[in-house]
Structures are given as C-alpha cells and as structure tokens.
C-alpha cells in the first residue's frame, strides 16, 4: 500500500553520509560538521583523512562503501605458505606481487585510493588497479608487511578482497592473447612499408634496373607477414583439410598462398612487381577482424563452478580451540563451524541442537529446511541463524549434492568450433573458386600456357576471401557489443549462431520467472496500528531468517524500537520484548494461530502479548510482463518449465504457458540436466534460462545457457550469456534481433559476391595487374567493415531496441561481500 508523497521540509530532510552517500536514517553521526550514516563510515573517513588521502572524496562524490555491517574477517589463513603460494603471482626475498579481486571497486575514486595504498600500508611499494576486471595488483616487501595485514587493511577501508576456493585452483593464464597484438604489429608494419615502397608502381613510373631492388624488399617484408601474421590461418586450413572438412580458413589460405607464390615468381623472374601489398593488406585486415571479434567482457565470468562459492578457509576445532585451516585440508571426522549466511562446504552431521538450512542454492527449493542434531547436512546449503557445528563425514570434493559436477556435461568442453555458417560458405566458396580456376586454365591452356598460369593465379588471388572473412567478425562482433550496451552479455560470437538455431526454451522458476527476494506482502487480519507495526518491525529486524528480512524491508517506514530478550527457535520463529510487550513472529504453531494452513503459500504469523493478531502472506512477485514475454516466445519456440520448488504455483503457470509445454516441479539439478539431454536426443536445440547453481547442469548441457541476474558480482554459474534481469521483458526482441543479424551477414556475403564477380572478370581475362588487385582488396575490405558495422546498428534501431532503458547493475552491498569468507 503506497503512501501519497508528502512534502518534506528542509529541516526534516534526512542528511546523507559524506562517505557512502546513503541516507542517515537509523543512525546519524556528526563529526566536524559532517554527516555520517554510521560509525564505520566515519571511521574510514578518519583513516583516510589522517593519511592525507582526502582526494578520494574530491574525485567522485560519496565514493565510499557503506560500512553499516562490519565483520572482522579472519584472514589468518593468508599466513599459511601453502595458500600464499597459490595466490601470489611472483615472489622473491624482498618483493612479492599479488593480485586481489575486489568486487567493491566501482568508481574513479576507488582506483585513486587503491593506487595510493602505499600511503596507508607501509611496506607496499606500488599498486595498480585493473578497473574492468576489478583487480588490484600489489607489490610489497614481505619483510615489512604480511599478505594478511594487506588484506585486513583493504577490508578496513571497505574494499575486502574476495577470496574463494575457485580462485585457488585457477591456473594462472595470461589474461590477454598477446600474440594477436604482435601479429597485428608485424602485419601493419609490413603492410605500410610495402605500400610505401610500391608508390612508384602505383604512380605508373617506369622502373629501371634499380627498381628491382624495391621488389626484393617488398618480398622480404612480405615474408614475416606470411610466416608469422598468417600463421593461425595456415594452421587452421591445414587441420581442416587433414580432417576432411573445409572451413573458412581454407579459401583464405588458398588466396594467401596464391598471392605469395605468384609474387615470388614475378619478382624473382622479373615479370612484374608482385602482389605483396595485397598479401600484407589481406592479412592485416583479417587480423583486425579477428581482434574485433575477440572482444571479451572482463568484468564478468562465464566460467564459475561451485568452487567459486566456497571460502578458502574454515574454522576447525583443534586442540581445544577454533583454528582456521584451508578448506582443502578438512578431513572427515573434524568438527567445523559454519556461521550465518555461510555455505556448508562438506557433508556432515549436525552437532548443534537445531537450525535451518537454505538449499535453494543447490536444489532450487526456496523454503529453508529444518534440521535437528544428528541429521545429515549436505554441502552447498546455506546456514541461516546462529553458528552451527558440523562433524564432517565426507571430504570436500566428494559431497553428495555436488556430484553433479562429475557429469560429462562439465568434464567435456563445450564445442568451440568456429562459426558454422562461415565454414559452410567457405566450403562452397572453395569449390566454386577451384572450379572457375579449373575452367579458366582449360580455356587458356589451349591458346597460351603462360597466360593460363597467369589467369589461374589471378583467379585464386582475387577470389577475395577477404570480404567473406570479414563479414562475420564485424557483423557479429558489433552485435555482441550492441547487446552488451543493453546489458546482455554473450560469451563469444559463436553463441549468436547458437541462438539463431534454437527450437526450445526451458525456464527455471524461482529467480528466473520470479524476482529474487521480491515478495508481494499482504497482511491478513485486523490491520496493525502504527505502534504495533513498530513492534513487529523491530523483532523482524533482529532475525536472520530471509522472510523476516523481507518483512523488515516491507515495514521500513516504521521506526525501530529497542528489543530485549531476543530468542530464536529454529523452525518455529523468533520472540522478543519491545516496549514491554512480548512479540512473537513465526509459524502458525508458534504464535497460536487459530486455523493453520494457508493453502501452501509462505506466511509469517504475528502474536503480541499472547494474542494472535494475524499473518503476513508472501507471494512471489513474478517479473514484470512475464505473461507477455512467455506468450511471445511461445509463438516461435517450444517452452518448458523446470522448478526445484513444490507445485503450489502450478495453476498460475499453466494459465500462461502453452498447453503443450512440459511443466515439472521438484526437479533436482540432475533432473534438469537429464531433461535437457532428453530434449537434445529428440533433435531439439535448447536454451536454458536459469539463475542459480541448481541450474548449473542444465545450463552447461544446453546449447545456450542464459543466466539472469541483477548483480554481476553475484556469483553466477557457468553460462554462455548473462542478462540483466531488468531486460527480461525484452528477451523476445533481443532474441529476434540476434536471429535477424543472420540476414545482415547474408547481405554482406552478397556484397562480397559482387566484388568477386567484378574481380574475376578481370582475372579470367588476364587483366589483373597488381594495381587492380591493390585497389580492389582494400575497397572490398573497407566496404565490408562499414557495411557490417552500420547494418547491424541500423537493424537495432529499426527494431527500436536502441530505446531500451539502461539497466543499472546493483552495487555489491557490503554484507554480500562477507558471505564467502570465514
């Protein structure tokens, strides 16, 4: 129920925190005439001020991370040499280089502060931030400061490093394919210089004896282009031919070799000046196309597996005290401690009396499961409530629910073959060119053998694989960039083709069709007074149960009172005393509800001073326009829904999905995976849309795995595409755009065909001089680039997709950061 907006006078307007920019509503601290929303923020401000780092606040307004929830993470595990070795990049006696991932990096001030870390932490000599990847590389002297101290300091100022098990196992690969840059450098250098040396030729100046040396130089400059710049194309074509399949690189290689051979003969036999400029130009443009196509999104990860969710170290009861040990060292029989909101890393038996575990992470069930001492707890569940202790029964890598990752869907790499369409075209093209060359040879061999050789090589040269090879990189490369602009990120251009071939779309329910933690809350019973709402909110605020948290947010316009005697009964509810009244929030049983049973919907009952007052009903809020989205998609695709939840939403779903679609509930992750496989066995090409790790198997097995999220710092399972959840209503149009871009590519191929016809008409008559080639090649390449870029952009405008609202990523909240470390 929304209030009508109220006029707020200046004196009533809430001040905002100088450090983090949030409103100072619940607490307000004034220090030196400046407002802070909490002690934490003020404290960070003080540290920065004391160390002469006030510039932080000048570069960007309110750049700080909210410090309301502060947890002192125990970084003791960073003292372990074994762990250190896996994290640091380089070590010597006086210098260590380490790279941390800091999800809280979000603005220019962050970069400034982190690069001035040396002022804050003696021993650090320099630090460099990679903003897009949210990483900082720190150089420090191990004799002056420890890795642990640096991590602690980073956390103090609000930039806690994210350390998880997945990072430990990451191989240290060079992040960027540098080889491509070297190749571009060589090709560009040689291309430019060859063209300079070919100037006399272009201007038609007759050469004398000495001009032969220019040709030799050209040949010499063309050699590195062939051997180094064109290396990958030559290798790929060779592989293709060896394995019997022709791919796009085969005609390219044919062209390159024809250019080189013909030029060698012409130059050394003194018949002409060769075509080295076209050769270098061809390779140069091809490499640019490759670079354009290779765009990756560094701030996203398409490759996370469950290990990214686990902390590096855990508290273990050893020798009468709690010590932190690396997770990999945990053995069956040990007693470990799991705090609130932490993931259980290994299967074990519950030792503490009772608790609730949220398995939505792994199984998709949104209701927490009530567990008693002696029950088995499976790894992957999230602990809710006060810390629990578990006796480990299985080693970390052998947990029951996480065996999903042993499925071949994960062990076999997803097919990485280059574009199918390009390969098909490449095949037809090669055949056509060889045929034309053959015919030309036959025609001329009767008349003039010399001419025959000239024309055949000309045909092979001018066949212009350049235009063909550039069509896809620039068109799809641009499509990828345009989609990313709208917050839909594809792993690679290959996914575009997969999307074009889809026949079936499978949806997950919770988190995909429904918004995460977004409930429609309605109170049933005599409405609560303002005072009573304050009571309820105060108690809800103190509870860690996700439903209580939602209630707290729903009631956030009410004040918070101070509570006493707070007690939590796992599986039942919470109780506390506020303003002298005893408030109970929880199950029907707990609060003495007269008639339990709320037709399967989640609800939270309230009683005040022993009197039952009513209950709040929670209804999952489905995403905006979800019905329309489903109906539109149903026109072109078969649809299915797989949910890990129970079937309480069946009727509503059935009313929206087409009658023929399969709706299944209580699906475990393995069930989802098997369903996808069954579809594929029936020749379907499947897109899986999910959001959590319980969809991981299905996402991996399907042709296109699409993940919906609102926070890119939320760990998302391995996928092929990531989309911002605000874009869900536009999903059909985005898919349609991707499909229509195929027509743009066909348009490009048509253009290429025109060029080929023109070029071939010169070639078969033996009139292909180096000058003609040198003109046609760049013109066709440039046209192809311009067409690819503009046509794909134009298509976006025609489809009115350029007017999509710019979705905002949620900035990681501080409490999220503390979830995954001990």
């Amino acid at each position: 129920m929304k209030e009508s907006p109220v006029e707020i006078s200046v004196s009533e307007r809430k001040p905002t925190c100088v450090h983090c920019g949030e409103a100072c509503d619940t607490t307000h601290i004034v220090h030196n005439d400046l407002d802070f929303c909490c002690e934490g923020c003020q404290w960070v401000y003080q540290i920065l001020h004391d160390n002469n780092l006030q510039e932080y606040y000048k570069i960007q307004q309110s750049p700080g991370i909210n410090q309301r929830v502060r947890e002192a993470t125990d970084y003791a595990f960073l003292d372990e040499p074994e762990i250190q070795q896996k994290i640091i990049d380089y070590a010597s006696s006086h210098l260590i280089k380490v790279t941390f991932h800091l999800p809280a990096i979000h603005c220019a001030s962050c970069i400034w502060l982190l690069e001035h870390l040396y002022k804050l932490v003696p021993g650090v000599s320099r630090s460099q931030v990679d903003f897009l990847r949210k990483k900082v590389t720190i150089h420090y002297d191990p004799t002056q400061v420890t890795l642990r101290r640096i991590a602690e300091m980073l956390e103090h100022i609000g930039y806690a490093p994210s350390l998880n098990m997945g990072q430990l196992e990451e191989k240290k690969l060079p992040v960027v394919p540098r080889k491509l840059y070297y190749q571009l450098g060589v090709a560009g250098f040689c291309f430019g210089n060859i063209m300079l040396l070919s100037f006399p030729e272009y201007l038609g100046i007759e050469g004398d004896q000495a001009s032969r040396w220019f040709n030799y130089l050209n040949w010499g400059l063309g050699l590195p282009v062939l051997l180094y710049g064109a290396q990958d194309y030559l290798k790929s074509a060779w592989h293709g031919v060896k394995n019997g399949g022709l791919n796009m690189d085969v005609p390219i290689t044919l062209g390159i070799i024809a250019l080189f051979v013909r030029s060698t003969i012409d130059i050394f036999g003194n018949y002409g000046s060769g075509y080295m400029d076209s050769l270098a130009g061809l390779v140069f443009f091809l490499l640019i196309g490759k670079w354009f196509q290779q765009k990756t999104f560094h701030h996203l990860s398409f490759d996370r597996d469950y290990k990214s969710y686990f902390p590096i170290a855990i508290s273990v009861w050893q020798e009468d005290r709690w010590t932190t040990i690396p997770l990999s060292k945990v053995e069956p029989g040990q007693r470990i401690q799991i705090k609130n909101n932490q993931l259980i890393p290994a299967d074990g038996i519950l030792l503490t009396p009772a608790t609730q575990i949220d398995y939505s992470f792994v199984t998709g069930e949104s209701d927490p499961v009530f567990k008693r001492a002696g029950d088995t707890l499976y790894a992957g569940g999230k602990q809710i409530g006060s810390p629990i202790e578990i006796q480990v029964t299985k080693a970390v890598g052998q947990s029951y629910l996480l065996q999903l990752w042993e499925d071949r869907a994960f062990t076999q790499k997803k097919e990485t073959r280059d574009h199918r369409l390009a390969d098909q075209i490449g095949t037809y093209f090669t055949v056509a060119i060889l045929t034309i060359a053959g015919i030309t040879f036959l025609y001329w061999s009767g008349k003039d053998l010399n001419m025959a050789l000239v024309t055949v090589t000309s045909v092979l040269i001018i066949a212009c694989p350049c235009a063909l090879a550039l069509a896809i990189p620039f068109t799809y490369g641009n499509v990828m960039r345009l989609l990313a602009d709208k917050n839909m990120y594809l792993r690679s251009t290959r996914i575009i083709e997969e999307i074009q071939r889809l026949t079936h779309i499978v949806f997950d329910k919770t988190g995909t069709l429904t918004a995460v933690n977004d409930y429609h809350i309605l109170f049933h019973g005599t409405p609560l007074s303002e005072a009573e709402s304050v009571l309820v909110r105060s108690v809800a605020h103190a509870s860690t149960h996700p439903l209580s948290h939602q209630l707290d947010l729903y009631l956030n316009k009410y004040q918070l009172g101070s509570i006493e005697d707070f007690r939590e009964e796992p599986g039942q509810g919470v109780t506390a005393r506020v303003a002298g009244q005893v408030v109970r929030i929880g199950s029907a049983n707990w609060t003495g509800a007269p008639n339990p049973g709320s037709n399967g919907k989640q609800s939270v009952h309230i009683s005040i001073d022993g009197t039952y007052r009513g209950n709040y009903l929670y209804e999952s809020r489905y995403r905006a326009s979800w019905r329309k989205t489903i109906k539109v998609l149903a026109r072109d695709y078969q649809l299915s829904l797989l949910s890990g939840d129970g079937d309480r939403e069946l009727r509503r779903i059935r009313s929206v999905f087409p009658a023929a679609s399969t709706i299944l509930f209580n699906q475990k992750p393995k069930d989802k995976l098997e369903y996808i496989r069954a579809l594929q066995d029936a020749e379907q090409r499947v897109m899986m849309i999910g959001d959590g790790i319980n969809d991981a198997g299905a996402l991996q097995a399907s042709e296109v795995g699409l993940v919906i999220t609102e926070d890119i710092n939320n760990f998302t399972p391995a996928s092929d595409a990531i989309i911002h959840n605000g874009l869900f209503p536009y999903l059909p149009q985005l898919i349609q755009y991707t499909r229509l871009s195929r027509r743009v590519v066909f348009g490009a191929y048509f253009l290429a065909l025109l060029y080929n016809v023109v070029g071939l008409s010169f070639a078969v008559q033996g009139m292909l001089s180096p000058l003609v080639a040198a003109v046609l090649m760049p013109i066709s390449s440039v046209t192809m680039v311009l067409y690819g870029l503009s046509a794909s952009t134009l298509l976006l405008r025609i489809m009115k997709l350029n007017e999509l609202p710019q979705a905002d990523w949620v900035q990681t909240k501080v409490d999220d950061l503390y979830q995954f470390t001990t």
Partner: protein
Amino acid sequence: MGVIFLLIGISLIVAGGFLAAFFWAVRSGQYDDEYTPSVRILWDDKKPENSTSIDNNSTTVNKP
C-alpha cells in the same frame, strides 16, 4: 640516385625500431588493460606542500 637505397635502408631500420618499441609495449603489459589508464590520466598531480623553513633532515616521499 643510389643514395635512395641508403635512405630506404636507414628508414627501415628506424621503422624497425618503432616496431621493436611496440613489441616492448605489448610485452610490458600496456595492452592488458585498456580502460584504467584513461581514468588515471585525469587526476591532478598533487602540489607539493610549501614549507617556509627547510628541514635538512626531512625526507621527500617519491611517488612510485
């Protein structure tokens, strides 16, 4: 006219030097991060604090 060969030779060597410089730039990681330098360049250099008396024992802090 023969001097042109000398000139071409020298210019190729100089150009080759630039290519080598490009290789060095790639190798030293300058192309690994193409975004952050664009932010860094906009910061002001800090003006050194002016002190009226010069202390012989003070050490200057060098920015790395």
